[in-house]
C-alpha cells in the first residue's frame, strides 16, 4: 500500500527581522526614533520529505536553523517562503486536527505545571486533548512503566532532577498518542546514563507505536543511537540528507589527538582514522609528552568541514 509522506517541506524559508543597534547611549536614543532592522535568514529554501515511522535526526550546530524548522512544522512560526505540511495539514494557523496528532518536546524548557505533581499535569493534558479516560489510564500506566516513573509522578515537578523532569515531561507529551514527535534537543544537559535512557525509550516508542520522530540534537551520539537517516543543516541550508552510515563514512572519520607537554603546553592534531597511529607516533617522538587523549572530532568540526566541502551558492 503506498503511503503519503508524513512531513513534506518544499523550499521552506524563514527570515527574521532583527533590530540592530550600535552600542552606546547615543545609538540607543537614535534607535528610539528610527528603528533599524536587519534581515537574518534562519532557514533558506529547505526541502525534504519524511515517511511514516521514520526517525530522522536533524543535526547542526547552534543557530543552524534546526529549531526554527521544527517550529514551523509545529505551527509556531509562519514561514516567509515555501511550503510545509504535516499529516496533510498546513501547520500555519495551528489547526486543532493537526495539533491533536503531534507533540513538541523541548529539552531546555518544561511544560508541566511546576508546583504540581506530574500526575496532575497529566490529568490536565487529558482535559486539553480530551482523551477518553480508559485510553488515558492505560497509556499513562504504560508510559510510567516504560520510563520507570513510579516514584516520580506524585512529587511536585520542581522537586525532580533535570533528568527525571525530562522523563516525566516526555511521558506527559505522549499521552494523546501523537503520530508525529518533534523532539528538540531532548537530551540537552543530561548526564550520559540519562541520555541513553531517553534514547532507548524513543527507539522503543517508535517501534511500538510506529510514530514518526524528528529529533534535533547537536550530540552525534543521539543521532547515532536513534536515526537511520540524518539531515545536516548549517546556516539554514541542508548540507546532507541521507543514511547515517554514509555520513559517518564521509565525514566522521577524523580523530583528534591532544597531547599535553611537560611544560604544560597543549597540542591538538586532527587526522583521518587511517593515519591516526602515524600522527600519534610522530607527536610522541618529537615532544616530551605527559598526557595523551584521542577522541572523535566534535560534531561542529565535522559539520564545518561538510560546509566547507559544499561551495557556497
Amino acid at each position, binding site marked *: 500500500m503506498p503511503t503519503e509522506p508524513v512531513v513534506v517541506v518544499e523550499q521552506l524559508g524563514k527570515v*527574521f*527581522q532583527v533590530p540592530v543597534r550600535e552600542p552606546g547611549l547615543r545609538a540607543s536614543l537614535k534607535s528610539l526614533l528610527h528603528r533599524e532592522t536587519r534581515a537574518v535568514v*534562519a532557514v533558506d529554501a529547505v526541502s525534504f520529505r519524511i515517511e511514516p515511522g521514520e526517525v530522522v535526526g536533524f543535526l547542526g550546530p547552534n543557530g543552524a536553523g534546526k529549531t*526554527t524548522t521544527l*517550529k514551523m512544522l*509545529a*505551527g*509556531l*512560526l*509562519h514561514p516567509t517562503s515555501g511550503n510545509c505540511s504535516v499529516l496533510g495539514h498546513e501547520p*500555519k494557523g*495551528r489547526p*486543532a*486536527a493537526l*495539533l*491533536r496528532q*503531534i*507533540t*513538541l518536546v*523541548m529539552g531546555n*524548557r518544561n*511544560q508541566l*505545571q511546576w*508546583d*504540581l505533581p506530574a500526575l*496532575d499535569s497529566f*490529568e*490536565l493534558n487529558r*482535559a*486539553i*486533548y*480530551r482523551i477518553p479516560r480508559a485510553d488515558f489510564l492505560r497509556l499513562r500506566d504504560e508510559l510510567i512503566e516504560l520510563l520507570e516513573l513510579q516514584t516520580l509522578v506524585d512529587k511536585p515537578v520542581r522537586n525532580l532532577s533535570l533528568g527525571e523532569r525530562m522523563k516525566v515531561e516526555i511521558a506527559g507529551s505522549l499521552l494523546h498518542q501523537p503520530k508525529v514527535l518533534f523532539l528538540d534537543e531532548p537530551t540537552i544537559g543530561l548526564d550520559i546514563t540519562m541520555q541513553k535512557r531517553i534514547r532507548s525509550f524513543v527507539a522503543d516508542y517508535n517501534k511500538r507505536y510506529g510514530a514518526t520522530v524528528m529529533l534535533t540534537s547537536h550530540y552525534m551520539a543521539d543521532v547515532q543511537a536513534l536515526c537511520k537517516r540524518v539531515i545536516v543543516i548549517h546556516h539554514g541550508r541542508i548540507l546532507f540528507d541521507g543514511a547515517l552510515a554514509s555520513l559517518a563514512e564521509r565525514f566522521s572519520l577524523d580523530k583528534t589527538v591532544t597531547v599535553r607537554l611537560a611544560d604544560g603546553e597543549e597540542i591538538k592534531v586532527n587526522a583521518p582514522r587511517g593515519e591516526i597511529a602515524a600522527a600519534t607516533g610522530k607527536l610522541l617522538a618529537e615532544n616530551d609528552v605527559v598526557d595523551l587523549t584521542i577522541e572523535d572530532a566534535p560534531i561542529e568540526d565535522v559539520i564545518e568541514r561538510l560546509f566547507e566541502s559544499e561551495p557556497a551558492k
Partner: protein
Amino acid sequence: MTRRDDQRTGAVRLAATFLRVGVMNEVQYRINFFIQLVQSLLTIATGLTALALVFSHTDELGGWTKPQLLAVMGVFTMVGGLIRTVIQPNMQRVVEDVREGRLDFALTKPADAQVLVSVRDVRFWQLTDVIVGLVVLIVALVQIGDSVSARDLAVFIGVLLVGLVTIYCFWLMLASASFWLIRMNEVQELFDGIYRAGQYPVGIYPGWLKYGLTFLVPLAFAITVPSEAVTGRLTWQAVAVAGATTVGMIVFSRWFWRRGLRRYDGASA
C-alpha cells in the same frame, strides 16, 4: 451540537478541570491560608482607618454616606481577591511565558490558546480577601439598614461578574502588550497602584480620572457599579453602559490578543 457549542463546553470543561486540580494542590499548603488571612485583615484595617479619617472631617463623600462607602470597600476587597485568585496569576504567567519563550507549549495544544492561558493558574488562598470583603460588605449593609431583596442580590452578582469580565479583558490586553514590549515586569505593580483608586467610588474623582477609571481601566464596572447595586443607587443607564462596554472589551481584547499571537508567530526565534 454545533462546532461552536462544542468549543464552548470544551472551554468550560477545561476551566473546571484546571480549577479542580489547582485547588486540590493549593489546599495542601494550609499555612498559606493563615498568611493570606493575616494579610487580608491588615489591608482591610488600613482601609478602614483611612475611611474613619475621612469621616472625621465630613459626613459624606461625593454623595456617598459612610456605610455606603464601607460597602464600596467591601466590594473593592472582594473583587481584588477574585482578581488575584484567577485573573492576575494567569495573565502574569502569559507575560513571563512570552519573555521566556514558553508560550510555545500553550500554542501547540488543540485548545483555544486564549482559554488555555486564562485558566492555567489559580491562587486559591487569595480568596481570604473575598471572605473578609464579604464580611465588611455585610456589616455595611446592616448599618445602612435597608433590606436587600433577592432581586438586588441577583443584580449585584450579575454586575459583579460583568465587572470581573471587564477586568479580565483589561488584563488580557496588558498581557498581550508583552508580545510587543517583551519586558513588562512592572505591569503588576502598575495595575495594583491603579486598582487602589477603586476603593472609593469613581464618581468622587475629577472628570478625566473618572473616565479613565471607567473606560481605560474599568474599575467603575468592577467595583462602583456592583456597590451601587447593593446600596440602592444603581441606575439602568449604568447597567446598560457596563454591558455595552463589556461586550466591546471582550471583542477588542480578543482581537488584540490574536494580533499579538500573529506577531509572536512571525517574530519569535
